């Protein structure tokens, strides 16, 4: 029953929206707003298995690599900065400076630094989605309960053990928030990283459709990006469940009606 309810809840709104889009756009003659049926048609034609192998999977690979690196870097740096006030004072302005860089200027800089291979694209993804993880980790580390810190200090829980059992765990709800923020950002940055210095990939393909005025195909690419977003967020939720079981139990459990 509960499962059924969850499925219904998850699908209800999308079904309504898709139906509205389908009928609302039916017979559309607008060049940039084709009907959904045209888009779905284009989707079937475009995103074949070969296309996935040639364009989508390499992109997804870079996306995952970039995302994971960003999470690791963000958490590591965040713990460092969140723990030591002086490191934070020293680095925060520089980081804020870098954080404001728009990708259209960022990508050239990355190319300058590391060429035009996969490495650059991964770099762009990392650079773009490290921030939510970093900021959230910093605040999570800074905001942990003092009594827990004191407990660790008196019982001399130090070093790695402290990192693992206090710092990271206490910050984990915020780290997860940051990681969740970063996930769709990684997809967006995957596309952006393929704007320049690319000759293959999902983002590249979508942009080619756009430039080639293949608007239904472009829309189908957007659709695919959204679907990838859903799939990744489902995977993310599975990971979160096991990681933050204690948290959700403590927050909600059976305490509410």
């Amino acid at each position, binding site marked *: 029953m509960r499962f059924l309810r969850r499925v219904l*809840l*998850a*699908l209800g*709104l*999308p079904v309504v*929206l898709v139906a509205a889009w389908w009928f609302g756009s039916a017979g559309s003659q*607008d060049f*940039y*707003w084709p009907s959904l049926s045209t888009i779905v048609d284009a989707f079937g034609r475009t995103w074949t298995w070969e296309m996935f192998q040639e364009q989508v999977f390499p992109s997804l690979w870079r996306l995952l690599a970039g995302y994971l690196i960003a999470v690791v870097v963000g958490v590591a740096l965040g713990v460092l900065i969140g723990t030591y*006030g*002086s490191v*934070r*004072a*020293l680095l*925060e*302005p*520089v980081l*804020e*400076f*870098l954080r*404001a*860089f*728009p*990708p*259209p*200027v960022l990508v050239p*800089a990355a190319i*300058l630094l590391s060429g035009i291979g996969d490495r650059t694209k991964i770099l762009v993804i990392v650079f773009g989605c490290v*921030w*939510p993880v970093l*900021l959230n980790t910093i*605040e999570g580390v*800074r*905001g942990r*309960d*003092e009594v827990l810190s004191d407990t660790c200090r008196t019982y001399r829980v130090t070093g790695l053990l402290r990192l693992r059992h206090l710092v990271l765990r206490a910050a984990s709800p*915020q780290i*997860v*928030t940051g990681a969740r*923020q970063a996930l*769709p950002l990684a*997809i*967006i940055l995957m*596309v*952006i990283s393929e704007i320049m210095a690319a000759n293959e990939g999902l983002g590249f393909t979508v942009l080619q459709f*756009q430039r080639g005025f293949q*608007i239904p195909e*472009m829309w189908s690419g*957007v659709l695919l*990006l*959204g679907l*990838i*977003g*859903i799939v*990744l*967020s489902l995977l993310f939720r599975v990971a979160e469940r096991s990681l933050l079981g204690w948290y959700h139990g*403590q*927050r909600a*459990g059976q*305490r509410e009606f």
Partner: protein
Amino acid sequence: MVAVAARTSRVTGRRFRSVTLGVLGLLGFALVLEVAPRVGIVPIDFAPPTSQILVTLGEQLGQPSFWTALLRTLLTWANGLLIAVVAGTVVGVLLGSLPVLRAATATTVEFLRPIPSVALIPLVIVLYGPTVRSTLVLVVYAAFWQMLIQVVHGVVDVDPVARDTARSFRLGPWGTVRYVIWPSALPYVMTGLRLAAAVALILTITGELVIGSPGLGKEIDNAQQSNAVRIVYALIVVTGILGVLINVLIRQVERRVLAWHPATRAETVEGVGVR
């Protein structure tokens, strides 16, 4: 009196120290960027050293067109951020407090979030033309999600005992949001604000750059098309400085509204001691 003065000087002393460190950090960064092109780590023609960038920046500061561009960018940024923050907060509090609503919208949200603004650009232009409006739409679209997710997670983070207290004293939906949920979600919200502010700035510049609505981004595009490398970098530095200033501003607000929070009070109360 003496004690108050001592406390004030201690606080300003600490503030002074952190500002000094921050400036040091920026100077170190500038130094790296000065030296790297000079010793040939990056080609000097395409990554001018800091000193040259600063000279160009100085020239830019003397031009009224620069200031109008800056002003326009800031206006778009501020408008977009305001809309995104208000909308993100309202929707976030709703979704955060009502699990059913959250479950019902989850799929849609996860579908919409990864859609890149570059893909949206032609569609937005068809709707609003190559105007500030279009840029604004992109800014709001991108910054909204950042805010939304932070607020939702912040609302979920409310201490269950605090929530129960609110319920048993029948604070009502508005009272609960105003006095319990909002303050306890604030740390997340402030992070969300910082994230959204930067994203809004990025999208403002990007939008201007690609769409051609007036502002710094358009100046950057123009400089890029003209191969005016130093101007490009000077304008990027301006973007970066804006980022730093915006953050200083938000931190200031944060110190005020989060004075009670462990993260903030640890810095101001001597009591917590040997951290």
